[in-house]
């Protein structure tokens, strides 16, 4: 018996890359069916599968850090690359998979309170979509095959359209617009990999990368780069491809928006790094041009996003425009294109996942309890929701880049990278962007801590009136399932700053040193 258990464990350990995808995928497929039997069963299966996926990703990260050459190549169904599909796991995508599954796990638990009173179809469907989105994102992160990446891209996009549309009346046009633009993005991607397939006859990333080196002066490469920039630019809402994003983020389902805004845009960003630096190689002239273009777009996006965020009063829209700006940081790092620049980009992918995730968790809780999203109604909110306001404060400081929060350190690496290449203009843009961030994020803090108390319809009061003496007593500001993710992300924002050097040293630089 004991022996069997060991065998099972070893089997799991050998198949960690694929299990991170397969387990949530099975849960997604089972969710609706099980929900029909018992509403809670469907939810429980998805949440457990995401918990497993998170533990799996952590194990995978540990494995890859100890692996020879810091690399695990997992052949799907034992079909060896380049014929078969492979999962190409190195420290940077393993760690990102950890973060994605973590935020997905938190979001699925957090959503429980939104779906408490819903029918089996709605809650089962919602959890199916959450699980599918996670599958898509984790798959995109880990895969080593360009066409397989397209499949996961579509899985994540389609489930994302659904989750956005669930947000309410205004979210349906937003979801539809994202569907149209997102499809164009996916087509661009298909065009790009189609061209590369024509040039090399391979779909495996590593194999394709080698074969492409001799064809780098082929003018088609410009077309390839342009379609990839368009494809990932649309998916990560990079300026000027961001038009779909503010509505989509603002009106998506409040339970899913941390996952959508936190993780959804980061994976295409990592894919961009994967393509330009790992597959193509930065020593080629065409890639230098392409990354320079990405950097310029990033710099423009940083300014544009922040300026647009300045005149938003809906906190969610403000966060959405801030995401355009923050994605600009990531693109800027790609544009700088040296070890420090890309390290900064990668660190910012992780940091922003925590910052934006935390802020969306917080606004979801405020919406849940008081039904407000307008920052002008936030007066004295810290007295009613201290922990939520703690997370907002931490998120805001991290966005501005105040040490010791994580946001400061990604800025530091980006600045170091820009300095190395003497791109002083990028340093100026970073400073300007921080100051613009300070204006609109500290304005929110000002509203919370200084503005006079606003009159709000408290959900708890309503419940108390309705239920009379039988009403539940509320010791916490929001139900524990919401409060825990909020606090965890609030602390995580600072923890990311404190542990940044470990991430940079053991994860980012071990993987990136081979490239530069």
């Amino acid at each position, binding site marked *: 018996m004991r022996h069997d258990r060991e065998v099972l464990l070893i089997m799991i350990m050998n198949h960690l890359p694929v299990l991170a995808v397969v387990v949530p995928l099975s849960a997604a497929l089972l969710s609706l069916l099980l929900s029909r039997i018992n509403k809670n069963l469907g939810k429980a299966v998805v949440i457990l599968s995401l918990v497993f996926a998170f533990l799996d990703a952590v194990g995978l990260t540990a494995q890859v850090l100890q692996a020879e050459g810091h690399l695990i190549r997992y052949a799907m169904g034992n079909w060896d690359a380049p014929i078969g599909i492979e999962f190409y796991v190195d420290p940077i995508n393993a760690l990102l998979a950890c973060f994605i599954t973590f935020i997905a796990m938190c979001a699925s638990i957090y959503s429980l309170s939104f779906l408490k009173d819903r029918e089996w179809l709605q809650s089962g469907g919602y959890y199916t979509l959450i699980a599918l989105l996670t599958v898509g994102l984790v798959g995109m992160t880990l895969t080593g095959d360009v066409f397989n990446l397209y499949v996961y891209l579509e899985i994540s996009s389609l489930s994302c359209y659904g989750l956005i549309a669930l947000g309410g009346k205004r979210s349906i046009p937003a979801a539809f617009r994202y569907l149209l633009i997102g499809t164009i993005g996916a087509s661009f991607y298909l065009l790009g990999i189609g061209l590369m397939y024509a040039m090399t006859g391979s779909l495996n990333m590593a194999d394709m990368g080698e074969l492409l080196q001799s064809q780098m002066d082929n003018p088609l490469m410009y077309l390839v780069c342009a379609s990839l920039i368009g494809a990932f630019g649309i998916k990560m809402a990079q300026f000027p491809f961001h038009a779909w994003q503010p509505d989509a983020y603002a009106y998506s389902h409040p339970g899913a928006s941390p996952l959508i805004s936190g993780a959804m845009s980061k994976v295409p960003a990592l894919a961009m790094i994967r393509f330009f630096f790992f597959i193509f190689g930065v020593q080629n002239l065409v890639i230098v041009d392409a990354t320079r273009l990405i950097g310029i777009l990033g710099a423009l996006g940083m300014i544009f996003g922040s300026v647009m965020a300045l005149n938003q009063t809906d906190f969610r829209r403000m966060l959405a425009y801030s995401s355009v700006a923050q994605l600009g940081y990531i693109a800027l790092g790609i544009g700088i294109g040296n070890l420090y620049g890309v390290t900064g980009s990668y660190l910012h992918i992780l940091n922003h996942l925590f910052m934006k995730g935390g802020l969306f968790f917080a606004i979801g809780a405020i919406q849940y309890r008081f039904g407000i999203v307008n920052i002008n109604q936030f007066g004295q909110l810290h007295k009613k929701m201290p922990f939520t306001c703690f997370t907002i404060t931490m998120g805001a400081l991290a966005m501005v880049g105040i040490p010791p929060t994580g946001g400061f350190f990604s800025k530091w690496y980006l600045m170091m990278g820009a300095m190395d290449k003497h791109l002083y203009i990028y340093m100026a843009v970073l400073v300007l962007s921080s100051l613009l961030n300070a204006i609109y994020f500290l304005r929110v803090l000002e509203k919370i801590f200084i503005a006079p108390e606003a009159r709000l319809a408290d959900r708890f009061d309503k419940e108390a009136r309705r239920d009379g003496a039988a009403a539940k007593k509320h010791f916490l500001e929001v139900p524990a399932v919401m409060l825990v993710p909020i606090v965890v992300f609030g602390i995580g924002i600072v923890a990311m700053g404190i542990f940044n050097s470990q991430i*940079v040293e053991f994860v980012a630089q071990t993987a990136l040193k081979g490239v530069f």
Partner: protein
Amino acid sequence: MIVTDIRPLLAVAFPLVASLLILFSGKKPNIREAFSIIAAVGAAICALSMSSGVVAGNVYEFVLCPLTDTLSLTLRVDYAGELFACVSSFLYVVVAFYAIGYMRGHHEKDQTGFFAFFAICICSAIGIAYSANLLTFFVFFEMLTIATWPLVFHERNDEAKFSGRKYLIYTLIPGQLLLVGIVIVYAMSGTLDFVAGGFMNDSMGSKLMLSVVFFLLVGAGAVKAGMMPLHGWLPSAMVAPTPVSALLHAVAVVKAGAFGVIRIIGYVYGPEVLSGLKVTQILAVFACVTIIASSLIAFSQDNLKRRLAYSTIGQLSYVVLGACMLTSLGMRGAFFQIVAHAFMKITLFMVAGAIIVTAHKDNVSQMNGIGKAMPFTMIAFAIGSFGIIGVPFFNGFVSKWNLLRGAIQGGMPIYVVVLLISAMLGISYLVPVIFTAFFPKNKETEFKEFHEANPFMLVPIMITGVLSVVMGINPNFGPHLYDLATLAADAVMKGVVH
């Protein structure tokens, strides 16, 4: 000798941990205040206990954790850091008691937030003192910037809100420029560790580049120290409660700025490079203008706290001026001015606060004959004033005397003239206050009975007042602060021949 010691970390950690405990104990004011006092006393014991070791030549160091891939958060207790940390942590104890008396006497709202951010400010100030490299310095510097903001907007009315915004605009922009400066310095020199005498040299970049970076670096310090024309935030921040003013203007924020300027001049660039660049002369001109102009403005202010704020602006530029002289005596004067001004100005501000709480008066013109009602308080005010003016046997004299000698040592008589004019102006704006208090013009004064401030406020005032005199007579009283100033100045100026 470098000794690994946990005390520098504890001195920083006490107030930081206390701030969290304070936030969670808002409903029990007595426990909350107990945390504040325990943290203050703990930090002060840690800091003061190291001073004799530092004077003896030990350097205590603690590497907490890596900050980035190449730099770490390191706390190091050198002469200069120990000097500033002793002052900040000791005065925190004093202000912690005073704040209890003031906040309760004045029935302030939101006291929990006040005490919590107050603690974070002190944590950052001690951190700034003990920072071993520029990045650690920057971390604490920005923490200080943010933690001071809630103290400035404490009143939560429109005026406070705008002061808060003004404060942020004035401090965040130079903060970001400081970061750019740090990145450039790191790229040029490959190190950020403070070294007495500086680690930069001429070969690292063109003269223009070095000069531009110098101003990027000192800008943040100069703003916090209220140097003109970047002083606008300081008088506006006067809307804050008085213990904050005392803290802002005497200990943490402004001194951190001045201390930062010294760190850049003495420990990053060093006198040798700077004497070639001539940038300190430009900075000195700004300092001189600030000294004179702020005294003139102070003269015309009727609100006592505003008058003291402008006086602070002038007095801090003494520190900058002393550092810019690039002479050992000037540097010694600059270091000791940090100590002397802290004790004098905190006394003055605490007196102003005591008057607000006890007699409900803000303006000098309303204080006709107040010396009769509050004799001890006003005597302390007189002591502080004499120190600011630079009367012998008060601690302000010690620093000013060294500054004068430093100016002569460097062959810069114009600075002597500036310092003397400033002393005259000091007489003109501070002595009238004392005069109004003790010798009322008309006998129709409303202050007929003896009505002193409550002991929580009076005792701290007396302590700092008495120490101002004691340190005027024996500057080495207690933790050898004068020795520290001398040693620090000599370490920075070693190898520079006059």
